[in-house]
């Protein structure tokens, strides 16, 4: 898993948050399937060269959120049925939309122009693909 996770010191997010969101992302896109073993705190800390307390904090939050489960004596695993990341999904949509809107405003686009550009981009991505873009 470690090569899939990256720590970026230019990222404004704290390292534990980068790990937390990185794991969530890997689980969400299926790179870490339900039941998969995740590295121990110690191993991941060594791989990423970060403080184990930082990894531990990220794992704790992921466990609290139901993304990971700890089986005593066995290790840490991806939870059998990760909860639907509804709240997170909404947050992300909102953040990304805000980013796009701010770029559009900065470039002096009108609301209509921004919406139609978005519409075009959406179509170019979904055209020809199956409509099952639900998740």
């Amino acid at each position, binding site marked *: 898993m470690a090569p899939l996770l990256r720590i970026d010191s230019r990222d404004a997010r704290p390292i534990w948050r980068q790990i937390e969101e990185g794991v969530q992302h890997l689980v969400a896109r299926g790179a870490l399937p339900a039941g998969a073993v995740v590295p121990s705190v110690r191993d991941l800390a060594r791989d990423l*060269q970060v403080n184990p307390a930082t990894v531990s904090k990220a794992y704790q939050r992921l466990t609290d959120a139901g993304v990971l489960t700890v089986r005593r004596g066995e290790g840490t695993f991806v939870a059998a049925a990760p909860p639907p990341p509804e709240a997170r999904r909404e947050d992300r949509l909102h953040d990304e939309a805000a980013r796009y809107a701010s770029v559009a405003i900065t470039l002096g686009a009108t609301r209509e122009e921004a919406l139609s550009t978005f519409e075009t981009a959406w179509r170019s991505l979904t055209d020809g693909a199956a409509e099952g873009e639900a998740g």
Partner: protein
Amino acid sequence: MNPIALEGLTVRYGARLALDQVSLAVPEGAVYALLGRNGAGKSSLVRCLLGEQKPTSGRALLLGRDVWSERAAILSEVGVVPEEPDAPPSMTARRLSRFCSRLYPRWDAAGIEARLKRFGVSPDTPFGKLSKGQKGQVMLSLALAGTPRLLVLDDPTLGLDAVARKAVFEELIGELADRGTTVFLTTHDLAGAERIADRVAVLSQGRVVLEEEMETLKQRFRRISFPNSRKEAVARLETLAPVAVASRGWEVEAVVSRYDEERLVREDEPEVSALTLEEIFIAVTGAAGETGP
């Protein structure tokens, strides 16, 4: 009790003030990085911390006791990796281990052998024949073998290549994972410090100019740049406490120390980016240099 507490530590060499009323506390379990440019006072601070030098005034408490008056009793619970690895050149790591085992109550001889093996250093090579990196690795192995409550590392990766540096960090991370030892380190390796330290202090001209948790530090500093045509926008950043302003090509940029998104003036077209610890360090120590005596 804080494993390290410095109280008004002052060191004066004749007319020169090397440390000026330095007070700081390292909480239990912290990984604490002390940063500073050459000549900032780091070496004087570490010497006082290890009871090698008597401060002109103030005091250094290690594990709750004054280190200058109780050095011998305290240091058996502290692991030290000095900046200049120093041991009799003819002694092998194995003999050094046997020698040190008599000084420390909880000596882990097997741990040393395992660490040296991971470092790829032979325990039977005389100390004088080892490279600088290997000497440092022997020192770290010896420091950890005492199962210390507190580990003091004086620039442990200075002069090491990338591979040796990684090995040192991995050993340190293993120790933190296993025992949660409190660590105090000085370093020039700001990228390494950024990933491992949870608290940081910056020393500049003998004073602590910054002391806080890594996370809050990184949250409050930002680089904000404007197109050159909006130079006057920099003046509107006053409430964000700018510490450095520079003109670069077609941009003017400021490093602010109290970033607050709400206070940005959107019409100024600010571009905001996060800073690495190294960039924060340069902004802070550079600014102190300009306004200093």
